[in-house]
């Protein structure tokens, strides 16, 4: 277990390092000279040169990388070029809003996705199974931004129950704050539930057909106990991995959903930065999102190892 944990921890450090290289490298080949953008279209050559000098844009790439990277390690992501403020607080503020969305959606996805998947597997080929199946088909067949738009249309425009976008302010009361979250969270949840429930179902069905479940039944244990104690735990092992992957999916969807609902989170900030070629902001945003995803995977790996005795005891296979 120690080794298993160590390997993953070191692996993540390495991956983040390679990622920083990749992110930095790609943003370097972005078109449009940063200095020109900053100085404005009509600035003269000397102004541009001065800016280049100030930002060290004429230094060799590795030096620029090193400057950037050594800052990142201590939490200094530089200045936003467009907003001319330090990147870190900007990003953190946006990230906090997004985390609320993502966190709520993740909890809902976990609870409902697993429940639906297990119910469908236990009642394989009966009505509830088919109902879940149809539901998940619809869920994964249409992109989340379309669901977002449909939700806005129905709940905000026609019914007028909920606001169509933006974030609520806690000063206006909890209800107003929550009401702004409902639609984005539902939209995020809907497509992911389908994913989780489908995979939980198939893994649960496999487990229910396994030799050891048959053996448990041969011992005369009540079916409920067989499902809960013998099948569920083994069937949910792959679901842990799936949930971690869905965190990545969630972080991707959040970009789109924030755009649909004009929600001031990290996704919108990132899109804004890309539009304006704000390099430090892009670099920090993507790196942060990737890092969160990495740590979600780390947690999943640890949980997986913990619930899997083969890893917990002895067999320290990769």
């Amino acid at each position, binding site marked *: 277990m120690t080794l298993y944990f160590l390997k993953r921890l070191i692996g993540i450090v390495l991956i983040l390092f390679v*990622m920083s290289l990749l992110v930095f490298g790609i*943003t370097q080949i972005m078109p449009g000279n940063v200095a020109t953008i900053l100085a404005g279209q009509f600035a003269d050559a000397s102004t541009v040169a001065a800016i280049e000098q100030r930002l060290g844009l004429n230094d060799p790439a590795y030096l620029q990388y090193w400057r950037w990277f050594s800052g990142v390690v201590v939490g200094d992501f530089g200045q936003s070029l467009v907003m001319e403020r330090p990147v870190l607080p900007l990003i953190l503020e946006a990230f906090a809003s997004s985390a609320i969305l993502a966190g709520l959606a993740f909890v809902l996805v976990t609870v409902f996705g697993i429940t639906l998947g297990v119910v469908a597997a236990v009642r394989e080929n009966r009505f509830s199974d088919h109902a879940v199946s149809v539901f998940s088909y619809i869920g994964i*067949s249409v992109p989340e931004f379309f669901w977002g*738009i*449909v939700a806005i249309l129905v709940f905000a425009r026609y019914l007028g129950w909920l606001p169509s976008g933006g974030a609520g302010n806690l000063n206006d009361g909890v209800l107003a704050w929550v009401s702004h979250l409902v639609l984005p969270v539902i939209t995020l949840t809907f497509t992911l539930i389908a*994913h989780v429930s489908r995979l939980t179902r198939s893994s649960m069905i*496999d487990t229910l057909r396994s030799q050891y479940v048959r053996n448990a039944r041969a011992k005369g244990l009540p079916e409920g106990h067989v499902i809960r104690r013998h099948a569920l735990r083994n069937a949910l092992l792959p679901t842990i991995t799936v949930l971690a992957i869905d965190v990545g999916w969630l972080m991707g969807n959040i970009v789109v959903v924030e755009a649909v609902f004009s929600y001031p989170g990290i996704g919108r900030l990132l899109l804004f930065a890309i539009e304006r070629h704000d390099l430090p902001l892009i670099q920090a945003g993507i790196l942060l*999102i*990737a890092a969160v995803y990495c740590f979600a995977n780390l947690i999943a790996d640890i949980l997986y190892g913990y619930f899997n005795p083969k890893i917990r005891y002895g067999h320290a296979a990769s």
Partner: protein
Amino acid sequence: MPHPDAAPSEGGLPKAGRLPRRRRRFQAIRQAPLKLLVGAVLLTVLVAVAAAAPWIAPYGFEDMSILKRLKPPSAANWLGTDEFGRDVFSRMLMGARLSLMMGFAATAVSLVIGVPLGLWAGYRRGPVDEIIMRSTDVLLSFPPIMLGLLMLAVTPPSLWKLIIAVGIVYVPSTVRLTRSITLGLAGEEFVQAARARGEKTFYILHAEILPNAWPPIMVEASLRVTFAILLGAALSFIGLGAQPPSSDWGLMISEARPLLDRAPWVALAPGLAMGITVIAVNLLGDGLREALDPRTKRRGG
């Protein structure tokens, strides 16, 4: 953007049971015809419509008309018109071309790059395998849309770049799937027999391993087509894919967003079209998977 890596069938080769494999498959197809059949028929229709779009569309997809701005669905314009007076139905038909091409071309990109790498890594093992696998680790550590974002953010958006970017997003998972299948097959006795008669690595990979690896790869690929369609649409929606005046569905929805109050049909039509396309491909892929998977036909004794 569904992540294909989560598919439970990864590396799960159909195992031969008592019934011969091929016969099982025919039986299975007869038993689970509905999904497969409906999916295949639906997709064929969609492909035909997309191919014939310029001829069957009632209007040109770029034809504007100030007089006909934001008209609701009617006999003349079945799905109404958009803010430039363009016929939504005609644009939707043309969008089918882009969407299907997006899905299939991006999947093809991921296969062309991913399958050879996976075969090589799984068969030769060693340092090459190590390097390939660690590279996929890094790529997989980006949430899928971020990788697309990163690639598209740096250059002016265009459709072919979108296709390449989406294709590359799914390369790591293709590599992993192919590798795990290859790993299993490399130990099979018929591969050992080929080695024992002195076959070259290339021959073993393409004549012995690949034909057996195709079915699971194709099942995954067929589902990945839908992921590619959805991811492509999402990237177009946030402005990093197809550019106006393209009739890409993601872009159409994005453009229709400010008009939701007055003309919801402009956004709903491409959304529904995309839903139907994705359902068709999903049905096909799921039907294939069930038909190829002996687990669905298990019997005691």
